[in-house]
């Protein structure tokens, strides 16, 4: 029996504008992409704009559905789930961090984090302690009573990270989480991700920024909807890994330049 990872992406394709009569008019955003993520891994997905990396993440996040192939998370084929099962699945197994922190502006930081638990119908008594514990880990305890507009961009993203992890999901998905942050806030957030990863969380992050990507343990490169290659950090330090990433991204970019 083949080895099963926590996340198993097998031969997925995504075609936009599918129209039987006008095959040519559709766009192939993902073309037969396959890869595995093991439990406890910290994986980055990189690729130039329009490479399909966000489409890939959306498919994994069950927000979008692939045209072909299967995605299995925790042994569960998510492409087979109906809308109702999908929302339950997202709620119970996945955690999200978006580019713009996407906190509810009407709720305090505490409430934003607690929301991930209340929609799972976790008992009220448990919610309080779990929110405070995760806030402690991510050093945002003193922001819990504040509203998003009172927080800095970095604090907001860490609250979002806390919301993503408080429900103990199988997989945390992050879409350009540092995209809107200055370098210092970005570093703080990525340190938080490192911490969560070291505590056992599995992370999958889409980014186009080599610095952000250098925090990952492994990078999956996507180009023109196809898997282009992978890069393991191994025992290299972050600076060395960063160098390798920059080299590859310039190669991918270079290819595009050639194509033109």
């Amino acid at each position: 029996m083949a080895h099963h990872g926590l996340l198993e992406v097998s031969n997925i394709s995504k075609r936009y504008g599918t129209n039987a009569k006008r095959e040519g008019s559709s766009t192939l955003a993902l073309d037969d992409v396959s890869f595995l993520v093991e439990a406890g891994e910290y994986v980055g997905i990189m690729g130039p704009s329009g490479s399909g990396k966000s489409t890939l993440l959306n498919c994994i996040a069950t927000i979008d559905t692939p045209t072909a192939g299967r995605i299995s998370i925790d042994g569960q084929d998510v492409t087979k789930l109906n809308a109702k099962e999908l929302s339950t699945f997202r709620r119970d197994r996945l955690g999200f961090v978006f580019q713009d922190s996407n906190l509810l502006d009407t709720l305090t930081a505490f409430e934003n984090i607690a929301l991930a638990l209340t929609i799972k119908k976790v008992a009220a008594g448990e919610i309080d302690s779990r929110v405070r514990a995760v806030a402690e880990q991510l050093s945002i305890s003193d922001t819990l009573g504040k509203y998003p507009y009172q927080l800095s961009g970095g604090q907001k993203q860490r609250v979002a990270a806390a919301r993503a992890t408080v429900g103990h999901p199988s997989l945390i998905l992050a879409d350009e989480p540092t995209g809107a942050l200055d370098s210092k806030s970005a570093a703080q957030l990525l340190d938080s991700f490192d911490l969560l990863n070291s505590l056992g969380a599995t992370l999958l992050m889409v980014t186009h920024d080599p610095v952000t990507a250098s925090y990952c343990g492994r990078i999956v490169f996507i180009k023109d909807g196809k898997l282009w290659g992978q890069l393991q950090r191994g025992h290299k330090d972050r600076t060395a890994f960063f160098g390798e990433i920059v080299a590859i991204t310039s190669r991918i970019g270079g290819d595009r330049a050639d194509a033109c």
Partner: protein
Amino acid sequence: MIGPMHAKLAFGNVRKSLRDFGVYFITILLGVAVFYAFNSITDQEAIEFLGTANKMMELLGIVINGVSVFIIVILAFLVIYADRFLIRRRKKEFGMYLCLGMRQSDVIRITALETLIVGAVSLAGGLLLGILFSQALLYLTAALFATEVPGFTFGFSTGAAIKTVAVFAAIFLVAALANSRTIMKSKLIDLMHADSKNEEMKLRSLPLSLVLFIVSCIIIGISYMLLVDNGLLEPSPEFAAATVLVCVGTVLFFYSLSGFLLRLVQLARPLYLRGLNMFTLRQLNSKINTAFLSMSVVCITLFLAITSVCGGIGICNTLMAGIEKTTGYDASVRTVFGNYNAETGYVPADLGEFGAFAASKDYDMAQGLSESAATLGGKPYDELVSESVQLDFMVDTAGNLTMGDLDEALGKTIKDYAGGVVSENYGIYPVYLLSLSQVNDALQLAGKDPISLDDKTCAVIADSDMLADYYRDLVEKRPSLTIGGESLVLTQFSDQCLETTSAPMNTGALVIPDEAMPETVERMYSLLDVRCASVDAEQQFGDLCGAIESTTEPDTWPITVSLTRTMVLEQSVGLSTIIAYLAVYIGFVLVMACAAILAIQQLSEASDNARRYSLLRKLGTPEPMISRALFAQIAIYFAFPLVLAIAHSVCALIVVTDVVAVFGHLDIGQMAIVCAASFLVVYGAYFLLTYLSAKQLARSA
């Protein structure tokens, strides 16, 4: 010029945003329908079969015309409000048009064309619906006037239709101008970034909200107490204070409501941290800064609508219920001979030559009227009147039996029974006296049982419901009353009405044996109750009395008031119809306006909220949970103004009941409940429509 491009875009936009236009469309549709239906009520052709009732319908027409001005203002406000909401929602779209190189004038043409399309369709639809409404009203009118619609009468009022079209065309024109101004004034950059401009989050400390909420409840409570204790018969400072306090309390109530709810639920931690409860409460709290004022206005308006409908229809029912009692005779003629004044005591009325004529006939009304008829050359009195009874209401100016003495005998005052309705110094007024034989003749003429008095006793007769309990209790005490030096025990009370009148007005007269009538009495007023020879004779007698009343011929009887049974019936039915129609007309438009304002406000928020709901969905919130949160949010917006308005109305109606008790016991009645229920249906329909549209909007992001 409107080119094909404008038309295509405009049609496309209307079709595309049918959901956005939905509330707008339905509001105009209902507005047009109601406006047409009520303005067509009085169309002569349709109601010709009503015959004599026509005069009342003319009056109704005049009143409805007047009220319609008020209604037009409300509808115009509503259309412009709704339009502004639609324009705001589409700023980005307009920005895109401008980016693509359209001129502002093109955009204005497109929106004007859209207004025209929506306006024309809803106007046409509304007229069709209005014709159905008016047809239903036609049958209702017939039922109220106790006649039948002969065969099938199709009532289409060209006049009302033209008026409706003209009024709404004018409203749309104003709305289109207001839209153009909005577009002209806005800059492209603002239009493009209209989305990202969020409402400034104003946060209020929650403990303050809690305090404010309690204060608002206390203020409302005080205003209720002021109103109930003081009534609203006279414009008193207490009434003014109650009005101001209830408004202030209402505004404060909604200002602090969301904060209070939030605080309250936060105290119950398990409830707060369940599902989307905290999200829903925060949602409410975040919008309350803009919503509290409209919620207050809606609450007060609903209160006016409920009170006017229930009160109006209740008054009608009261008028109609008492009508059998007060139409015991074919006709009654009343002549007032004297007044009683606190300072001067008894003062004879200045009747001039007519008074001298009455005196010369020894105050015999039948004789006097008969001779007056002869003088005026009408049909002989004896041919019209087959039987008559005269009642003389006397006061003993030498004796000193006053209303205050009755209070003393009972140990309670009339005020304890009738509240503020009674004038301040009623206590010094002498008690009216009637002789038993006159009363019994009158009762017999009306086919009622006569009163029989034992030796040394007397009875009291009063037809006003308000005082019935007072006299009942008084009779229980068996008080001994001194009349003309003789002592009579009060043993009986009768609530019979001794005349034909539009409202019972006898607040109490002692019926004493004829021989007990003191020598020193003065005549306050006399009544002549008449049985006429035929129905025609009744009409002719009414005309004759009218002629005698208005003539300047000196040798005629002085008449203060004369009423025939038919006149009373027509007046009451006409009056109650007018009140009922106005109540329904105003009530309906007000309720619709309230519901539409709430709906539009909720939907304008729903677009802001779309982002929030989409996030909840991404986080994996189950769909039913989101629907429930949305439902709760909108339900709170719709329910709280209604609940508070009902509370206000109950309080106001308690007071109104006291006032109406002068005419008889107020019966809110089935019809008022049916009307109130149908308004609730309209309100509920708007709520449902809002919920469904909001759900759709929440899903669209």
